[in-house]
C-alpha cells in the first residue's frame, strides 16, 4: 500500500524545518534564562525533540527508514542521558540543597 501521505503532498518540507527550528530556539532560550536546573534539563529535551522532529520529517519525505532508526537511537540515548542527569541532579541537591544553577559556582579548574 505504497501511497504518499497527504501531508507530504500538501505541506513543503521547509515548513517542518521552520517548525523544528522554532522549537529548537525556544528550548535554547529556556536553557539560557531558566535557573532551575530541572527546567533547564527539560528545555534540553525540547531541543532534542526539535531535532528528532526534523529528522523524522526528512526521513518521511524521502521515504527512507534509516532516518527513523536514527531517531530511535536518539531517543534511546536521551533516555539514558535523562536518567543519569537526573541522578546527578539529585546528588547535587543532596550536597548543595538547591537546584539554582547560579549557585553552582564550583566548576573552576
Amino acid at each position, binding site marked *: 500500500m505504497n501511497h504518499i501521505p497527504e501531508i507530504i503532498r500538501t505541506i513543503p518540507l521547509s515548513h517542518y524545518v521552520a517548525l523544528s527550528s522554532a522549537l529548537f530556539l525556544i528550548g*535554547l532560550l529556556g536553557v539560557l534564562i531558566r*535557573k532551575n*536546573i530541572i527546567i533547564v534539563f527539560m528545555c534540553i529535551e525540547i531541543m532534542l525533540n526539535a531535532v528528532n522532529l526534523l529528522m523524522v520529517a526528512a526521513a518521511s519525505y524521502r521515504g527512507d527508514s534509516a532516518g527513523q532508526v536514527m531517531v530511535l537511537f536518539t531517543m534511546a540515548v536521551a533516555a539514558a542521558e535523562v536518567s543519569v542527569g537526573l541522578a546527578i541532579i539529585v546528588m547535587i541537591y543532596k550536597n548543595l540543597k538547591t537546584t539554582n*544553577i*547560579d549557585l*553552582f*559556582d564550583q*566548576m573552576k579548574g
Partner: protein
Amino acid sequence: MNPELILHLILWPPLAGFLINGVFGARMPKWLVSTIACFSPLLSFAASVAAYIQLAGQATTVKLYTWFVGEGSAIVDFSFLIDNLSIVMLFVVTGVGTLIHVYSIGYMSGDRGFHRFFAYLNLFVFFMLLLVLGSNLVVLFAGWEGVGLCSFLLIGFWYDNLEYNRAASKAFVMNRIGDLAFLVAIFLTIYTTGAVSFADLHDTMTNDVRINDPAYVAISLLFFIGVCGKSAQIPLFTWLPDAMAGPTPVSALIHAATMVTAGIYLIARMHFMYDLVPVTQLVIGITGCLTALVAATIALKQNDIKKILAYSTVSQLGFMAVALAAGAYITAIFHLVTHSFFKALLFLGAGSVIHGLHGEQDIRQMGGLRHKMRWTYGVMLVGTIAIAGLPPLSGFFSKDEILTAVHSHNMGFFIALALASAFTAWYMFRMFASVFHGAFRGKNETWEHVHEAPWSMRGPLVVLAVLSLAGGLLGLPAITGQSHRLYNFLVPAIVQPKISASHAFEYALWGISLAVILTLLVICFKRYGSSGPSVPSVTPSFFERLLVNKYFIDEIYERLFVHPLKIAGSWLMHRGDYGIIDRVVHFPGKVVESGAFALRNLQDGKLSSYLLYSVVALLIFLTLFLIF
C-alpha cells in the same frame, strides 16, 4: 721516550693537580693537597729536562688533533711546538713554579682556602704551559686567556675584601683591552697570510722582503697592544701594582716571573715579523723606555714593599720591551730568565718579611729586621744586588747586555734605560735599607713576634738566591772570553746577530755603572739606613707630589675613560635598557598578562555562565561555517 709522551708528561700533570685539588681538595688533608700540588709542576719540570736532553735542540711539533678548519686554507691544529725557546720558557715556568709551590705550603698554611689556592696555582701553570708550548697563535691565545683568568682568580683570592675584588676586576678589564687587540691581530694574520702556526708564518714572512708592509705593521701593532695589556706596558700597566692584592706567592709567580713575561715571549716568538716592521719596533722602544722610566720613578716614592716590587717589575718589563725593539730578542729572553729568578726571589723574600710581621707591608713600619731574619736578610741581599746590577750577579749581565744592544741601536733609548737602571738601584737600596737596617719602627709587641720563615719557605728562597747569583753564567759577555750559552742555545729558534760592542765601550759601561750603583748604595744606606723613608714634607714639591700619586695616571684614566663610560652606561641603561629593550620585551608579557586577567573573569565556575559561553561558541562557529 718519543716527543708526544714527553709533551703529555709536561702538559697534563698541572691540569690533573688542578682537577684533583679543585674537586676533592676540601676533603683531603693538607699534606696530601700540598704534595699533589707540588709534584705536578715538578713532574712537568722533570719532563722538560727530558725534553731538553732528548730533543737536543731540534724543533719538534706534536700534533694532537685538528682543532678546527678555518675559512680558506687556515687549519688550526691543537698542536705543540717544543723548540729551544719553549724549553727555556718551560724551565722558567716549571722550575720557578715548583719553587713557588713549595714556598706556598708554608706561606698559605693558615689560610682557609688552602686547597683552592693550590688548585688555581696548578691551573695557572697548565695554562702557562699551553701558552709557551702552543705551536700556533690560537693555542697560544687559549693559554693567554687562561693565565688571565687564573690571574683574576688569584688576585681576588681573598674574595671577601671588596678592594681586592676591584683590583681583580681591574686586571681583568685592562687585560681584555689587550686581548681584544690580540684577537683582532690573529684574525688579521689569518686574513693576510692564511697561516696561524709559527712555522708557516715564519716561512711566509722570511720570504717577504717588504719593509713596513701596512698589513704587517697593523698586525704587529695590534699584537703589541695585547702585549701592553699582559706585560703591563704604558698605557695599560696600572693593573699590575693593584694586582698585589693577591697572596704574595701569586705576585711572585704570576705577576713577576711568568705571566707578565708572556708578552715578551710572544714578541720573541714572532720575531721574524717584528724584524720586518721598524715602525713598530720604534713604537715598542718608546713605550718600553717610557714604561721603564715612569715605573722606576714611581717606585722611588712608594712605601708598600709589594708595590715597590710591582713597579720594579713594570720597569724591568720595559727594559725587556726595549731589548725587543732593538732586535735583541735573545737578550730580552735572557733578562726575562734572570728577572724571573731575582724578582721571584725578591717577592718571596718580601713575602717572608710580611709573614714574619703578620701582614705588615709598609716599610715605614719595618727596620732592623736583619737581626731576627738572617736567612731572609741574606737572600734579599742577593736579590737586591742582582736587580740593582752589581757584578757578578745575574741582573748585571742581562741588563748590561740590554744596554749594549740598545746603545748600538738608538742612543735615546740608551740614555733612558741607563737612567732607569740608576733609579732601579736607588729604590731597591732604599727599600732594602729601610726594611733590614736601622731600628725597628713598628710597635713593640710586633717586634716581639717577628720570626723567621719555616723551612718550606726558606728552601725555595735559598735555591732562588743561588740561581740569582749564578744566572749570569748563562750569558757571559764576549770580553770575558766565555761563550754566550743562552745565545748558542736559542739561535736555532731565534735568528738574530750576536750582541757585541767594542771592548772599550764594555769596560766603560761596566766602570760607570759600578761607580754609580756603589755611590747610590752608600747614599741610600746613609739616608734610609737608620731612619727609614722620610716622612712626606708638609709642602711637597710638585715633582714629589707627582711621584707619590703615581703621576695621577689612575685619576686621569678615571676622568678620561671610566667616568665617561659610566655616564654613557647609565644613560644607556635608563634610556636603552629600561626605556626601549625592557619595554619591548615586557610588552608581549603585559598583553598576555592583562588578557589573562580579563579572561580569568570568564571562568567564574557558574554553570549558567558556561551555558551561555557554549551558546556563544555555537554562534561563532555557525557564523564561520556560513562565511567560509
